[in-house]
């Protein structure tokens, strides 16, 4: 029974994906027509066909894959690091009232500062390196995960608190058996949000500070007046974000307990 529902869910999903593809395809066709008929004469906005041939050329030279790999490494590395730090910070602040009282104001201030504002600082501290990008991507990943974890672990119901106490569980057992599972749906959503943010900030860091990756390539192509290559990188970034989110959602659904709630909405809310 479960395999059948799983299959029909995959079926429904690919059907939805198919329907969702109609609009972008139509837009690309319209874009191409408008350019080919000369209705849109801006030279700096290339036709999809021109962007495609630029993409193929860059792919052949190996330039494209090198840049994508670099950005991907910065984004994923920073996201993983930031998520782990965010989770630990969230657990500390969520479970210890004292830590919460003393540091929540600082957290709120730090997280209110746009991560972009830290890029120049990171460039000074870490110079123009991959490390610098990772730190920036990590910085922006920490907060959604930390805030969701705090919120989640504080959401353990009073009945579960009574239950945990009556079972005489230690603080670690209470965290593992009650707090983390309770917080899991919120943490999973935060992981998705912070992954998108990490990608954005990795590219920003490349634009501002590091001579490598998609962000730097964008600036280079702009300065060499090659809008076709620029558009190619922009579209590839969008595609990258889409793929990352898709892969992450799939992994969470299949390998993390409680990950299913991403797809179904949380229908087992206590009380």
């Amino acid at each position, binding site marked *: 029974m479960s395999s059948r529902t799983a299959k029909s869910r995959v079926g429904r999903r690919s059907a939805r994906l198919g329907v969702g593809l109609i609009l972008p395809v139509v837009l690309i066709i319209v874009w191409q027509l408008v350019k080919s008929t000369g209705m849109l004469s801006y030279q700096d906005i290339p036709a999809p066909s021109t962007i495609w041939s630029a993409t193929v050329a860059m792919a052949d030279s190996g330039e494209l894959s090198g840049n994508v790999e670099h950005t991907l490494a910065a984004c994923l590395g920073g996201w993983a690091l930031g998520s782990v730090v965010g989770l630990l910070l969230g657990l500390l602040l969520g479970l210890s009232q004292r830590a919460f009282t003393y540091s929540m104001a600082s957290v709120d201030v730090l997280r209110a500062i746009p991560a972009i504002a830290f890029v120049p600082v990171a460039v000074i501290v870490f110079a123009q390196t991959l490390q610098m990008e990772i730190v920036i991507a990590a910085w922006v990943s920490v907060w959604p995960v930390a805030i969701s974890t705090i919120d989640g672990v504080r959401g353990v*119901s009073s*009945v579960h608190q009574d239950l945990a106490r009556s079972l005489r569980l230690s603080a670690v057992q209470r965290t593992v058996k009650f707090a983390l599972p309770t917080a899991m749906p919120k943490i999973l959503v935060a992981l998705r949000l912070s992954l998108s943010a990490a990608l954005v900030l990795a590219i920003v860091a490349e634009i501002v500070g590091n001579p490598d990756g998609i962000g730097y390539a964008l600036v280079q192509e702009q300065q060499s007046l090659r809008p076709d290559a620029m558009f190619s990188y922009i579209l590839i970034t969008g595609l990258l974000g889409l793929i990352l989110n898709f892969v992450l959602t799939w992994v969470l659904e299949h390998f993390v307990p409680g990950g299913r709630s991403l797809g179904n909405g949380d229908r087992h809310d206590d009380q």
Partner: protein
Amino acid sequence: MTVDTTPLAGRDGPGGSVEAFSCANLFVEYRTRGQQLRVLEDVTFSCAQGEFVSILGPSGTGKTTLLRILAGLLRPGRGSSVRFEGNEVTEPKPDVAIVFQNYTASLLHWRTVERNVALGLEATVAKADRKSRVDEALAMVGLSERRHDFPWQLSGGMQQRVQIARALAMRPKVLLMDEPFGALDAMTKASLQDELARVQQLTGATVVFVTHDIDEAVYLSDRVLVLSGTPARIGYELAIDLPRPRNQVSTKESPEYLRARHTVHETLRSGSAAAE
């Protein structure tokens, strides 16, 4: 279905008549908006090992508060005495299991039935022994077939059975039950009452059962304690000498049952009349 029928606790312990719980001069005060609100006053009672005691009272009389005190989850007022097997209760005891009123909220919805039942054993019982304890508890409540389901796939009555199995798996000497069948329909309630009575006979566990249902209290108990008044105290105590096993039809038709029910009704009515 085979079930291990050796007594799990209590009954044949040394002394035989050792008290499971004893409370003396117990009182509780809450502080609300600067005012001291006394909920329980001068509550004095004891219950013997293996006894089925109901605490009966209208809602809001502090029944749950009393149960939480027995469970060690709440400290009573200074000078109160609450003892479990002769020792002062200052924290939850390992031999005492609680069954909460809200079964849906009390189960861990991210765990299957069997892992919910195993919850109380994980910290104390070696992994090798856990499975047989879980099997035994699930067999007692008739849920062996649903072991791989999640709580939300079960009906309310089944969810409450899971909670009872979770408590039984710990082989507690005492079950503290807080209106466990209050939210169930009449038919489910009747069958779970009989199941509980059977399990209690089987395990010899002491049961302290909070309820506002007079019939339920008289039908299940060896003794009924009526909480009444504000602040509440034990206004009446009645031993129920009906033979066991009891039967939903014949027991409830017997003159002794009707007399006990009548008495409790009268007590509750006069109690509430005095309060108004």
